């Protein structure tokens, strides 16, 4: 056996899972199809992520917070508004501040490439993790005692369990014959970064527009990350706009909230859909992150679900390993632990998006009323905030 675990996928979830499991004593072989240095280029991934308070707690345990110093923007307020572009903005808005989550920031914004660099450096410094990248995986072979990954032009790698963190189009999931159910949203999103004149004071804005939410998420250095969700036609048109016209459209959406606003990064467009794997575990294989569940990025929960998978996995592997059990056949608790959380959250963000992304008059009135009501009802708000911060339910040890 080469290691306790093989993790496929060197993205944010795969890297975090490797560090979390190694922190709990397991040895890990981490495989990725891409050259890690490619990942670190700004052009590779223009996205930024909101890391929930609980996920960030795991990064503190893993020493990643220190490697991120200077690149983390705490989110201290969330302002949700129902409105229409360029015109009337509903006076009934929903305001969360961090006191609702118990006086700590609700989340932490950072650029994906910063997080990726911090995780990669930690992986390179960790003697329990061996990273092989880029590699081309050709197949898997599972025996009574182990799982083998075949790699083009290199030696096979053998471990007790295989963790697939290879994303929405997971090769491992397909090879394992695990089906998915998919709901396309008929929406796309543009992600970019803007720089603005006035400070954001750590506030995240989620503006619900008829075609989809427009999110303004605070980054360091008077910058904000934009997630603009709209119909595919609108997004394609916005992608085709010349720089100055795109800038003008963004400025119109911001109004005069932050003074002068201008894009400071390339634009990226992503199609949106909800996709759930039918199983998370098969034999010695476990799916985590987007390979298991890819959700609408509406509440910033997609990555955080993957990070919670990583934390749960670390506990399950630790429990098996510290009791001398065969890790690969003792992964069932992972399914029990994650299933409920993942499906509930996927369903709730789906409903949330459908509720807000339309212009049907009764629903519009109801949701305006709903937002106004929720703002008045502290317990409902507190539930929502704690869910967004990942602080609900029994938590894996690294999230505490």
């Amino acid at each position, binding site marked *: 056996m080469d290691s306790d675990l093989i993790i496929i996928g060197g993205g944010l979830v795969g890297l975090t899972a490797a560090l979390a499991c190694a922190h709990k004593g397991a040895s890990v072989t981490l495989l990725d199809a891409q050259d890690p240095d490619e990942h670190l280029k700004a052009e590779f991934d223009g996205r930024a992520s909101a890391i929930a308070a609980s996920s960030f707690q795991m990064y503190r345990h893993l020493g990643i917070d220190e490697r991120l110093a200077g690149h983390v923007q705490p989110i201290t307020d969330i302002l949700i508004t129902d409105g229409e572009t360029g015109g009337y903005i509903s006076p009934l808005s929903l305001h969360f501040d961090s006191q609702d989550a118990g006086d700590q920031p609700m989340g932490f914004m950072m650029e994906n490439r910063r997080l990726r660099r911090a995780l990669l450096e930690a992986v390179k410094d960790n003697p329990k993790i061996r990273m092989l990248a880029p590699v081309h995986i050709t197949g898997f072979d599972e025996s*009574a005692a182990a799982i083998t990954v075949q790699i083009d032009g290199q030696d096979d790698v053998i471990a007790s369990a295989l963790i697939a963190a290879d994303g929405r189009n997971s090769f491992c999931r397909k090879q394992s014959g695990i089906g998915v159910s998919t709901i396309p949203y008929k929406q796309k999103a543009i992600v970019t970064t803007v720089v603005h004149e006035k400070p954001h004071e750590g506030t995240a804005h989620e503006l619900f527009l008829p075609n989809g939410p427009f999110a303004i998420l605070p980054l360091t250095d008077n910058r904000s990350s934009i997630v603009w969700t709209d119909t595919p036609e609108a997004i394609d048109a916005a992608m085709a706009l010349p720089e100055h016209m795109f800038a003008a459209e963004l400025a119109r959406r911001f109004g005069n909230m932050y003074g002068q606003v201008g894009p400071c990064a390339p634009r990226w467009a992503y199609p949106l859909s909800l996709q759930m794997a039918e199983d998370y575990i098969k034999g010695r294989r476990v799916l985590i992150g987007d390979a298991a569940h890819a959700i609408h990025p509406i509440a910033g929960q997609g990555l955080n679900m993957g990070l919670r998978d990583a934390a749960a996995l670390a506990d399950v592997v630790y429990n098996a390993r510290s009791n001398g059990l*065969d890790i690969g056949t003792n992964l069932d608790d992972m399914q029990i632990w994650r299933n409920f959380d993942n499906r509930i959250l996927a369903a709730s963000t789906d409903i949330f998006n459908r509720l807000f992304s339309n212009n049907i008059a009764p629903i519009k009135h109801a949701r305006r009323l709903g937002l106004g009501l929720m703002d008045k009802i502290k317990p409902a708000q507190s539930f929502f905030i704690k869910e967004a911060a990942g602080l609900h339910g029994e938590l894996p040890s690294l999230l505490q």
Partner: protein
Amino acid sequence: MAHADIAPDHISSVSVDPKEMESFARMAADWWNPSGKFKPLHVMNAFRIGFIKATLCEHFHRDPDIDTPLKGLRILDIGCGGGLLCEPLTRLGASITGVDALENNLKTAKTHANQMGLDIDYRHGTIEQLVQSGEAPFDAVLNMEVIEHVANPPDFMKDCGAMVREGGLLICSTINRTFKAFAFAIVGAEYVLRWLPRGTHHYDKLVKPSELRLWIKDAGLTPEPPIGMSLNPLTENWSFSDDLSINYITVGTKA
């Protein structure tokens, strides 16, 4: 489980004929499937290994957080079955001898250990025969869910005690003879939930903590207070409790 009436004439090491390998590999796959027919045993196993590891680490002053905390300890598992305890304890560093009176169990255990690349000394026979063979006493003897199946528990316990070295310990788990145990462990587990085959346990062979205590004393060991183990049938989670009315564990030490 140790059924004395079908034991061989003498104790012997276990080997598996290559011609039999395939059928034993199939049986091993059954034994070792955590959600298969031995599921209740697997659920209990993870819990009791945690107890055994903690007890051994405390008694022998080992650091439980290292990879092989039991390194160098010689442990005897009586009624080892398919090796559900032997394999994990081997991974934790111990040298394990597993004894069982049923040859098929041992061949299954041996086949699986070979598949997993684990070196475990499996012996076919009874504890009495092991004592007679002149085997050196062990650091620890495990006697888990066995005593309620043997023909003569006091004599059986004396043989177990003889296999514990001075300064070593015995860990013994069993089922109490109470109405609650009858209702849950026999009616519930065997008839209602079908977790165990019918006839696995007989009420009159169940063991009261006071009886076990006496047998351990008579075997020359000092019994510690018994610890209750409770199963939540809904979550299928085991936990320790003061409730000795169904499953319980007693540790005995040899001065």
